[in-house]
């Protein structure tokens, strides 16, 4: 009944483990990073692994890659245990994109992608027509075919990351694990890469796990979030459910910060502003944003905002003042502080 072949049901993840203990062994010393880690990673889904630094995210990735096997427990890759597979069989199941800088000299994009075929080629690494077809296919899928003969060194960061994803795809493994693929990328490329991964999960039926610190992008693109926090079990769920249940607050331990329940932005916990601000919606929230950043200011009694033309009417007990930009208002409020501060010092 407990035959591993029968264990793969629809509601069971393709990669799964229960009660793992993660850490390093160096000589006789063991350093435990996390314990009680259980998870299920599903095919056709993009999962983002998030959590503060040092909580064991990379160690979890290495446990799935079997480069640092868990101290206790086993990881299932499909219907076999990671530890029972040979290096080559493991490479056919898990492909990775790492943070480490790759040496780029003299390597064309096609050469780089072709390296992904290594677990499939024979002794000498000669590419068969099947390998060539697979390389062409993944380059088309990631739309980098036109870069094929360009040197990797000449690529932009976004293109290089895409080429590395194409290399991992060429490995033709059902599982893909990526360590911070969007770090160092500009705003639009961060979304491009994550949407590409989401697309690949669907089209190529892959189980994709991405470590990221980019909450905004993860909320926008991920099917599942895995949240890791110190001394707590791994929490998994859809980003929307985690926002509603408040589980997402684990990302910002302590009292100082919180994730805003509406925008999903991380903001500082501050008391509500003791000042009446009225006007159309986007304007109000940006004025509040500016005032929150400058908590030392003495606030006016009320602020009235109007659109077209943009104007800020600030009312103090004695007088009124009108500004046409937020920075002008902030500068005025700062000037109000000056004489006082001068005498205090």
């Amino acid at each position, binding site marked *: 009944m407990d035959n591993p072949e029968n264990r793969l049901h629809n509601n069971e993840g393709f990669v799964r483990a229960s009660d793992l203990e993660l850490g390093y062994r160096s000589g006789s010393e063991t350093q435990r990073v996390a314990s009680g880690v259980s998870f299920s990673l599903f095919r056709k889904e993009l999962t983002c692994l998030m959590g503060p630094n040092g909580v064991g995210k990379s160690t979890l990735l290495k446990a799935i*890659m079997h*480069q640092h096997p868990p101290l206790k427990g086993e990881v299932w890759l499909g219907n076999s245990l990671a530890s029972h597979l*040979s*290096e*080559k*069989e*493991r*490479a*056919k199941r*898990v*492909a*990775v994109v*790492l943070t*480490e800088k*790759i*040496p*780029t*000299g*003299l*390597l064309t994009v096609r*050469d780089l992608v072709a*390296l*992904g075929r*290594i*677990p499939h*080629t024979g*002794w*000498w*690494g*000669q*590419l068969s027509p099947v390998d*060539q077809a697979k390389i062409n296919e993944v380059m088309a899928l990631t739309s980098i075919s036109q870069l094929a003969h360009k040197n990797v*060194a000449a690529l932009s960061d976004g293109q290089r990351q895409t080429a590395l994803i194409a290399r991992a795809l060429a*490995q033709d493994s059902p599982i893909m694990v990526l360590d911070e693929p969007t770090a160092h990328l500009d705003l639009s490329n961060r979304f491009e890469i994550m949407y590409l991964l989401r697309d690949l999960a669907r089209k190529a039926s892959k189980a994709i796990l991405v470590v990221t610190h980019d909450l905004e992008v993860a909320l926008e693109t991920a099917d599942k979030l895995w949240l890791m926090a110190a001394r707590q079990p791994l929490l998994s769920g859809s980003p929307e459910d985690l926002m509603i249940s408040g589980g997402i607050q684990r990302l910002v331990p302590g009292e100082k910060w919180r994730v805003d329940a509406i925008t999903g932005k991380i903001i500082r916990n501050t008391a509500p502003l003791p000042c009446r601000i009225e006007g159309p919606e986007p304007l109000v929230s940006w004025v509040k944003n500016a005032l929150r950043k400058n908590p030392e200011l003495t606030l006016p009694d009320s602020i009235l905002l109007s659109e077209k033309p943009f104007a800020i009417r600030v009312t103090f007990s004695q007088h009124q003042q009108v500004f046409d930009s937020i920075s002008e208002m902030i500068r005025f409020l700062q000037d109000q502080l000056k004489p006082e501060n001068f005498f205090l010092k």
Partner: protein
Amino acid sequence: MIFTIFKSWMNKYQSQRLLIVLLLCVILWLVNLSLGSVQIPLKSLLGRIVGNPFPHSSWEIILMEYRLPKSLTVLLAGIALSLSGLQMQTFFRNPLAGPYVLGISSGAGLGVALLTMAGTAFGWQILDNPGNSWSLVGAASAGAMGVLVLMGLAAWKVKDSMTLLIVGLMFGSATSSVITLLAYFSAAEELKLFTIWSMGNLGNTGWSDLGFLAGALVLGLIPALVAMKSYNAMLLGETYAVSMGINFQKLRWSMILSTGILTGSITAFCGPIAFIGIAVPHLARLLFRTQSHSVLFPATAGVGVLILLACDTISQLPGMATSLPINAVTTAFGAPLIIWMIMKRSFSEEF
């Protein structure tokens, strides 16, 4: 069928270049055989290959007993040293790695130093005639193998490749200090014997030695060829290589075994030959514009033979009775060449 396999192996540009390199090797080989203190005209040389005897019987002796075995030694040494260098550079991901970074030349040097100089330093007399070439070979091989065994033990204990590189360099420094001590206490004549050995000599190998060297070359090439795919995977670094199913420990042992046999045997017979092992892989990369080891293996071997043949031809000082030590030539002509290539192209970027 064969053509498609070849096409997937290297492109047109690379196969053309390889053909040119091989052609130059043949031409330079003939020039190498013809030049020297006694010049044998190319015409008679070509005639001899077809089967016409030489007009002078002394030419026959010069060619068969001296120049031919020497040029074949150059062929073997060029291939062995440059391929060792290529493996080391890829394995350690370090452009400055060469066949001697694991301390093999220092080990061989220590063996020879003990043989030639320990007599006066310690009052030992290991052999009656330390200048005998077979005892030199024996001492050098014993030293090289000793260091290789030590490196093997270190590799077994140490898992990180950068640490292994540092351990190798430290072995080298430690043995050098012993050699310095021996040199300090030794007599002038013995010191000269050792110094001359350390300058390298390609002309000391007879036909029987050549058979041994060729066997060692084949033996040392087997692990390298088997690991060719793994070396390609190593281009992206160790973690990626392992994620692509490469058994890193196996690759490490194959690298130590292959470079140990290749450089150890050459160093035992010819002394430490400088420059070839570090520089030739870079030249091959620049000439063939690739990082793929299926191209780089034949390319590096070809360029290695070409460069060492050229250096050996120069060292014979055509028309003069003496010849220069090979290391003086490889370094004097090789270093400026490499500097020029580095200045011309961004070299570390292309590694």
